[in-house]
C-alpha cells in the first residue's frame, strides 16, 4: 500500500495515500471537529469547522477536503486555528435555537459537544434568530411516516441530502431557498418515504431530524447501558447497538429503547434499515408468550415447564417419532439448529420456512435490503440442512403433501422470530382444523393464531434475549447478544430443544451453549468463520459512555475527547475551580 508521511502538530504521521488530512488527524489520535464530513458520504466542505493550518498554504484549509501529501505540516491547535474555528462556531450558533433542554439530540449532540469545546464563550449575536415558525407554519414539520424535521435546528450540513442521493439512491431531500433562508425539505409533500429513513436521524448532527419512534421517549443520560449486537430481521445481519433505559417505567415499561447501526465495513457500513430499526416493539409487548401452555379438555392452560415437557413426550409417543415433522423458521440460531440436528434423524423430517419479501427500494440503492427475512439460512446450510428446491424462496411443498396424505400426526413448529418469520401459516391452521394434523406443538415467542390452535405452546426467547449466533448471507458468523432478560418463564430456545430431544429418544451431550458452539466449531471448523465459535465472547451491557469510546471508529474521537455524562456546562474562570477530575478541561478560546 502506498503511504504518505506528514507532520500533524509536530508529530510525524504515516497514512495510506488518498486519506484526507481530517482522517489522518483522527487516525493519529488527534481531533478536529466536523459536521458536513461523514465517513460514509462524499466530502462537501461546507460547514468549515474542520479548518486547520497547513504550511505553505495562504489560507486555513478545511481538513476534510484536503488530501494528505508527503511533507505536509499541519497545525490543529495554534491560536490562529483555534480563533478561526471558534468564529465558525459562533456563526453556526447565530441562528441555532439552543433549545437543548427539549431537544432529543441533547446530551449526544455534536453541536453541543463541539461548541462547548471549541466554540467561543458567548455569542455576540443580539438580534432575534431566524425562525421558520410563522403564522400557521411550524418549524417542526412532518418529514414522512417515520421522521420529524425541525428546521430551526438545522445547521445545513446537507448530510441528509447526500445520504438520500448517495446511499438511498432516491434523492428526495433538497435545500430550498438560499442564503440564511436555506431550508431542508423534500420535493414531495409526503416527506421522506424510504426504508432507510432512520439513518437520517443518525447522520443529522443536530436535533433537526428525529424519528417518531424515539422522539421524546428518552434522553441519552437515561439510557446508561448499551449492548453491541446484530439485527436478525433478514439475511443481511446488520451490526447494531441496543440501548437500555434506566427507568423503564418512563418508556411505558420497555427497557429496550432503540436500536442503532454499528459500523461494519463488510456488512452494513454505517447504516441499517427501518425494519430492523423500528420493528422491535413486539419484544416487550403484551403479546409475548410467558408460560408453557398445554391443551386439555378444559382448554389451554398455563403449566410449569416440567409438565409441559411430559406432555410433549406423551404427544411424540402417541404419534410415533417418525410421524412427527418439524417446521423450523429461518430465525433459528446456529445453536438451536445444532441441537435440532441431533434428533432430526429420529423425526419424520425437518422443513425450513421463512418469509420472502422483496423490499421496495430504488434500483440504484447502495444499501439493498435482502428479500429473505431470515438471518440464518446460510447457517442452516452450513450445518448440513436441506432447505428445499430453491435457496431463496421457501419450499414447504413436500411437507404440505405429506400433511395432505395424513402422514403427519404431529407437527412441531419452531418460530423464534417476529410475526411472519415462519412464512405462511394459513395452511397449517387449516390442516389442524380439519384434523389432518392431530397434534400441533409450537415453540415460539408471540401469541398468534398458530399458538391459539396449538396443543402445546413452549415460550422461547426473542433475538435480544439470548446469546446466540447466526450466519448471514455473506457467510459472516456473528453473535447476537443478550440485551434484556426474557419475560416470564420464557426459556432459551436451544435449551428447550435439548429437552424436547429427550422426548424423541435422543440425548444432547452439550449442557451449555458454549459447549454447543464448541461442537459446531469442531464440526464445521473448515468453513470460514466457524472455528472462531469455540471461544466466542458476547457483548455485555456497558456504560453508554464506554460504548461510545469503543464503538464506531469515526464517531469515536468525539467521545474520546468530550465528556458526555455530565450536563453540558462550560467551566470558565468565572465559575470557580474546575470540578471533578474526569472532566476534560476545556481550553479557553
Amino acid at each position, binding site marked *: 500500500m502506498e503511504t504518505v508521511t506528514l507532520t500533524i502538530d509536530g508529530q510525524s504521521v504515516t497514512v495510506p495515500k488518498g486519506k484526507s488530512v481530517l482522517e489522518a488527524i483522527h487516525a493519529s489520535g488527534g481531533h478536529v471537529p466536523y459536521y458536513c464530513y461523514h465517513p460514509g458520504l462524499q*466530502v*462537501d*466542505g*461546507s*460547514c*468549515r*469547522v474542520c*479548518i486547520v493550518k497547513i504550511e505553505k498554504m495562504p*489560507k*486555513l484549509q478545511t481538513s476534510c*477536503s484536503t488530501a494528505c501529501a508527503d511533507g505536509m505540516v499541519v497545525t490543529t491547535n495554534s491560536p490562529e486555528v483555534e480563533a*478561526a474555528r471558534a*468564529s*465558525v462556531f*459562533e*456563526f*453556526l450558533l*447565530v*441562528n441555532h435555537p439552543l433549545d437543548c433542554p427539549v431537544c432529543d439530540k441533547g446530551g449526544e449532540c455534536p453541536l453541543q459537544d463541539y461548541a462547548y469545546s471549541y466554540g467561543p464563550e458567548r455569542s*455576540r*449575536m443580539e*438580534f432575534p434568530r*431566524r425562525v421558520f415558525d410563522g403564522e400557521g407554519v411550524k418549524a417542526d414539520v412532518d418529514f414522512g411516516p417515520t421522521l420529524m424535521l425541525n428546521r430551526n435546528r438545522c*445547521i*445545513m450540513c446537507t448530510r441528509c441530502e447526500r445520504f438520500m442521493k448517495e446511499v438511498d439512491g432516491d434523492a428526495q431531500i*433538497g*435545500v430550498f*431557498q*438560499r*442564503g*440564511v*433562508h*436555506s431550508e431542508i425539505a423534500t420535493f414531495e409533500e409526503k416527506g421522506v418515504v424510504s426504508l432507510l429513513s432512520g439513518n437520517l436521524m443518525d447522520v443529522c448532527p443536530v436535533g433537526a431530524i428525529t424519528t417518531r419512534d424515539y422522539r421524546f421517549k428518552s434522553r441519552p443520560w437515561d439510557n446508561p447501558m448499551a449492548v453491541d449486537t446484530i439485527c436478525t430481521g433478514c439475511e443481511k445481519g446488520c451490526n447494531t447497538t441496543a440501548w437500555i433505559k434506566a427507568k423503564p417505567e418512563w418508556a411505558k415499561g420497555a427497557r429496550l429503547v432503540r436500536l442503532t447501526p454499528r459500523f461494519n465495513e463488510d456488512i452494513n457500513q454505517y447504516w441499517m434499515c427501518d425494519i430492523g430499526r423500528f420493528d422491535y416493539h413486539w419484544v416487550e409487548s403484551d403479546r409475548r408468550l410467558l408460560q408453557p401452555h398445554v391443551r386439555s379438555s378444559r382448554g389451554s392452560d398455563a403449566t410449569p415447564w416440567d409438565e409441559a415437557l411430559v406432555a410433549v413426550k406423551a404427544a411424540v409417543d402417541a404419534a410415533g417419532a417418525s410421524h412427527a415433522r418439524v417446521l423450523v423458521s429461518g430465525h433459528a440460531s446456529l445453536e438451536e439448529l445444532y441441537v435440532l440436528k441431533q434428533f432430526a434423524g429420529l423425526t419424520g423430517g425437518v422443513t425450513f420456512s421463512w418469509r420472502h419479501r422483496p423490499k421496495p427500494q430504488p434500483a440504484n440503492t447502495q444499501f439493498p435490503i435482502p428479500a429473505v427475512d431470515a438471518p440464518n439460512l446460510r447457517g442452516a446450510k452450513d450445518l448440513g440442512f436441506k432447505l428445499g428446491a430453491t435457496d431463496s424462496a421457501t419450499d414447504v411443498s413436500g411437507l404440505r403433501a405429506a400433511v395432505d396424505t395424513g402422514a403427519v400426526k404431529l407437527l412441531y413448529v419452531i418460530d423464534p422470530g417476529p410475526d411472519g418469520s415462519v412464512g405462511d401459516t394459513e395452511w397449517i391452521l387449516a390442516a389442524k382444523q380439519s384434523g389432518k394434523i392431530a397434534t400441533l406443538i409450537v415453540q415460539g415467542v408471540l401469541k398468534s393464531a398458530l399458538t391459539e390452535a396449538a396443543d402445546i405452546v413452549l415460550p422461547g426467547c426473542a433475538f435480544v434475549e439470548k446469546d446466540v449466533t447466526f450466519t448471514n448471507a455473506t457467510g459472516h458468523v456473528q453473535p447476537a447478544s443478550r440485551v434484556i432478560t426474557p419475560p416470564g418463564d420464557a426459556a432459551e430456545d436451544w435449551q428447550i430443544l435439548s429437552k424436547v430431544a429427550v422426548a424423541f429418544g435422543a440425548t444432547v451431550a452439550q449442557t451449555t451453549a458454549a459447549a454447543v458452539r464448541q461442537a459446531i466449531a469442531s464440526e464445521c471448523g473448515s468453513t470460514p468463520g466457524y472455528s472462531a465459535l469455540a471461544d466466542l465472547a458476547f457483548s455485555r451491557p456497558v456504560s453508554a459512555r464506554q460504548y461510545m469510546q469503543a464503538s464506531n471508529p469515526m464517531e469515536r474521537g468525539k467521545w474520546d475527547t468530550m465528556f458526555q455524562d455530565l450536563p453540558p456546562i462550560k467551566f470558565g474562570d468565572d465559575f470557580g475551580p474546575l470540578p471533578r477530575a474526569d472532566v476534560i478541561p476545556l481550553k479557553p478560546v
Partner: protein
Amino acid sequence: MELILTPHVNTPNGFTLDFYVKQGGYEALRKALSMTPDDVVDVVKASGLRGRGGAGFPTGMKWQFVDKKSSKPKYICCNADESEPGTFKDHVLMERNPHLLFEGCLIACHAIGAKVAYIYIRGEFYHVQEVLEAELAKARAAGFIGKNIFGTGFDCEIFVHRGAGAYEAGEETALIESLEGKRAQPRLKPPFPAVAGLYDCPTAVNNVETLCNVPPIITRGAEWFASLGPEKNGGPKLYCLSGHVKRPGVYEAPMHVTVKELIYGEQYGGGIRGDRKLKAVIPGGSSVPILLPDQIDIPASFDGVMKAGSMLGSAGMIVMDETTCMVWAAENLLYFYKHESCGKCTPCREGGDWLHKLLGRIERGEGQMKDIDLLLSVANNITGKTLCAFGDAAATPVLTTVGLFREEFEAHVREGRCTLKADWRSEARAHAHAH
C-alpha cells in the same frame, strides 16, 4: 483611439450577422482553424490576455491547463452571468456585438478541443438571450456554427442557457452546477474545472469580454494586442462607470487610462455631477476595496489598481460623491450579499445576514459603539474561511467602509442619525432608486 470591441455598438443594426461579416467577421475563425490548437493557445498566451471576469487570470494558461489527453469531451463555458453590482459591460457586448462573442467561443473550442460552448447568461437578461438566439440561428444557417465549419472538418455548437438569476451562479463551479441542472452552489476545488468541470469533463470557463478579445488577437497578433496597454495588461478594456458621474456608461479604453481620466475625462465620465467633491471610488465592482480621491491617479489596469490596494475586478467603477453616506452604502451592498449568498457554507450564510443586521441598526441610528468593532470582527471572521470567494467579497464592503470612514459610523452612533446634510441624503437615495 481605435475601438476594438465596441466600434459599432451605436450603429443601427451593428449587431447583425450581415454587418459583422461585412466588417471582416469570422475571418479570425477561418485563420484560427488553419492553425493547430496548440498554436492558437500559444498566440493567446503570448498576447498576455487576462480574464475579464474578475480575477485577471491569464487566459492562455487556463486553456493550457485543460486536460487535452482526457478521453472525455471538453467544454467551453462562457460566463455571461454578469451580476456584480456596478458591472454591465458583458451586457453591451452580447446585445450589440454578439457575433464577436460567438467567434471567440468557436476559436476557444478549437483551442481546447471542444465541440460545444455554452453561454450561461444571467436570468434577468431575457432580452439579451433573444438577441443571442436570433443571431445564433443566422450564424448557424450561414455555416459558421455547426458541422464541418469552413470545410475544415471542425464541428462546433453553441448553446445559450439562461440561469434563474443568481449572483453566485457567476462563480465558475456554481455556474457549472447550474448548467448541469443543479442549485448554483460552488464545488470544492480541486478538482478545477480544467480537469473535471461540466459533467466531470475538462472545461474552461471564460468571461464574455475575455472571449471577445480572442478574435482580434488571432487577426492582428499577440504583439499588437500586448502593445495596446501597459506591460502584462495588454488589450482593450471595457469600463463600467456608474454612480455620481455626469456621463455614466460603458467605455472602452486601453489599460493605460487612469481611474482619474475615466471619472473626469471629457470622453468618459465627464466629471462628478453638479461638480461636487469626489468621496470614494469602488474600482472593480462592489466586491473590492474603496479608492480615495487621492488614490485615483493610477492606471486602471489589473496591476495598477492592485498596487493601490484594491482590485480591477470586473472594472465596474462605482463613483460616490460627498453626498454619499458610507454607512448607508455599506448597508445597501450588504443587503445584496446577504440576499445572494448561496447558503452553502457557514460563515457566509450566517455572517452576511448578521453584518446586514448590524449595518441596518447603525444606519437607523440605533447602533452602539461596540457594533462598529463587531462589524470588523464578523467581517474578518468571514474572510478567508468560506468555500468560495463570495465570502471575501461580502466582507470587503464592510472592512473598507469602516476602515476608511470609521468616523461616519461613529457619528451615526453618537448622534443617533446620519450626520450628512439631510437633502444630500434624500438625493442620494433618489439617485440610487432611479437606477
